[in-house]
């Protein structure tokens, strides 16, 4: 007998107390928890996102479409970034003013090459206000998972209010499980030493978020 049959056989014998006719979906699960906590206007939801991002030590900036390219240039320059990884589908005008050399996200790029890159600029799929979370789904403006991991500085642009949801249930409903997802809440952190929180272990030690308003807000999160 294969181990598959062995394990499944054990499961069935172990469940002898479950009536044969019981359908899984008939076992009751009451979903009377909230879809979202509290009621907020779209603006207030964006405010809450900003607040919770900052609470977990992400640096929050705001911009409209007019000012975005200059803000990105300023933030990269402040870090002294000479090279910046960019996803292939990033809006070219975001980087139009940047002085740094752009490193396009390609399958052939090795992790070691990526390790020499100073910063990365991406969009995101969804942002969750209640938890201060950015979700990346490897869409065209976010690129492969590793580009937001290996460089030490991540600059993430969130279109508000379109890409912002209130809660975790609302976020999951917008996301496609077939895509690889990365949920980011503040910079990399550890509390393994006496439960003292230290930012920055392996992922980017600095996370900056630009809340982008106005001007043809662009596409909805990819599905």
């Amino acid at each position: 007998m294969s181990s598959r049959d062995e394990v499944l056989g054990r499961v069935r014998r172990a469940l002898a107390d479950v009536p044969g006719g019981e359908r899984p979906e008939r076992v009751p699960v009451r979903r009377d928890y909230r879809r979202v906590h509290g009621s907020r206007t779209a603006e207030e939801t964006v405010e809450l996102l900003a607040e919770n991002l900052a609470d977990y030590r992400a640096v929050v900036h705001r911009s409209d479409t007019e000012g975005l390219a200059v803000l990105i240039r300023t933030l990269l320059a402040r870090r002294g970034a000479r090279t910046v990884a960019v996803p292939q589908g990033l809006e070219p005008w975001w980087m139009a003013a940047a002085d740094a050399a752009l490193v396009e996200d390609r399958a052939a790029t090795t992790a070691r090459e990526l390790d020499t890159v100073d910063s990365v600029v991406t969009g995101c799929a969804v942002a969750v206000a209640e938890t201060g979370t950015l979700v990346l789904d490897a869409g065209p403006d976010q690129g492969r998972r590793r580009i937001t991991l290996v460089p030490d500085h991540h600059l993430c642009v969130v279109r508000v209010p379109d890409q912002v949801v209130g809660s975790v249930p609302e976020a999951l409903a917008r996301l496609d499980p077939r895509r690889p997802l990365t949920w980011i809440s503040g910079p990399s952190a550890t509390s393994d030493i006496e439960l003292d929180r230290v930012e920055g272990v392996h992922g980017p030690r600095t996370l900056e978020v630009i809340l982008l308003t106005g001007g043809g807000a662009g596409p909805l999160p990819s599905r």
Partner: protein
Amino acid sequence: MNGAYLGMPAFPRAAAAATRDGRLRANLTHATHTIRDKRARAVAELDDWAQLRAAGAAVKDRTLRHLDHYLEQLEAAVTAAGGQVHWAADAEEANRIVTELVRETGEREVVKVKSMATQEIGLNEALAEAGIRAYETDLAELIVQLGNDLPSHILVPAIHRNRSEIRDIFLAEMGRWGRPAPEGLSDSPAELAEAARLHLREKFLSAKVAISGANFMVAETGTLVVVESEGNGRMCLTLPETLISVVGIEKTVPTWQDLEIFLQLLPRSSTAERMNPYTSTWTGTTDGDGPGTFHLVLLDNGRTDTLADTVGRQALRCIRCSACLNVCPVYERAGGHAYGSPYPGPIGAILTPQLRGVEGALESSLPYASSLCGACYEVCPVAIDIPEVLVHLRERVVEGGEVTRRGTRAVLRPARGHAAERAAMRAAGWVFDRPGVLRAGMRLAARTRRLHPRRLPGPGRAWSQTRELPAVPAESFRDWWQRTRGTGTESARQGGEGT
């Protein structure tokens, strides 16, 4: 200590040693109180916590009651998404499968994401025997691995170590495993984390094979979920060419939507955060992004035996948040090592004896490693009634009875160590059936009370070593009642023994 929980002593002996370790107790008290308070605040932010908790328990119960259905669905979904599914009935088989999969890649080194399942099966030791070196990449696991130590907490495995101990371990050991610690390393957490970052980055950038566990597996979509903080998980899950995930079959949840419950319950219960810094989900393989080869090893190793026990089954709801450890007065004093398995604290006291069987000395002692205060049940985000299972397992230890071992029904004999207790209970039953004897005994006890020892001799010694013997009052309750309220008829009715 060395890297495997082999030949661990029974809980009372291990706990007796641990409670005398002043530094350990100080580290533990500080850590558990800090996280306990933080957690209470994080949970208080959600006014529907009770509903989330009930829904979490209900989803897990649905899954467990139809685990065969969901496992088959999961297997089909993972396979359709480009993954390969393997089934392991026990630890040995899981280790064999993983070793073989690593060998096929031609690699001799692997990087690992912190995983309870691989600790449970002793994977690192099995790989070492096959000449494959496994590098733990979680900071706390790294501290444990470099210190040739054992994890003592589910979430913070090095909770028993303080910063100066960690500094000493890094300075002494990092060089033997790779990049040495920087000279002049201080004991500030930031500097220690930086040393770990530099040490591990070389491993991440060159690793071809990674091994992980998973927090959840979604049957409907074949999606695996890893919840973490540092980014070492993301490194392992995305940079190598081959990813092997070893996951207990109970980690299954039916639908994608179900994650909305657990991604709220888990972070707040475990690290007391609104959300942990990183959560990764992946479904099979994705062209050009992440590992091109993905293996999922579905692990039984005692889980189906646990499932067969209709009272103990609820332990399989556990999402390994560790909230029960942080509120447990016994864990706080004894520390994690005393529990003798990767699962310490209250959940370990019910999970380990069920996964391994209660026959061993350690396993049969674990259901007693509790004061039954109930704090663990209150705090559990999936409402596992740990005290109920503890009492159930105590009964199993003392009385024996029907159990399932490796899928086969067996009848367990009563534990031998409990013969004295059973004899005492039988004697007590005889006395309680004879009121006259009972009254005479109580009077005798009252009159000799100044002569009573503070410790019991013989079989009662172990019990009285850790407890104050109750003082015997000068007058028994029955005599007092008789004297103050008595009608004078009680003695006549119950055997005619005059006052």
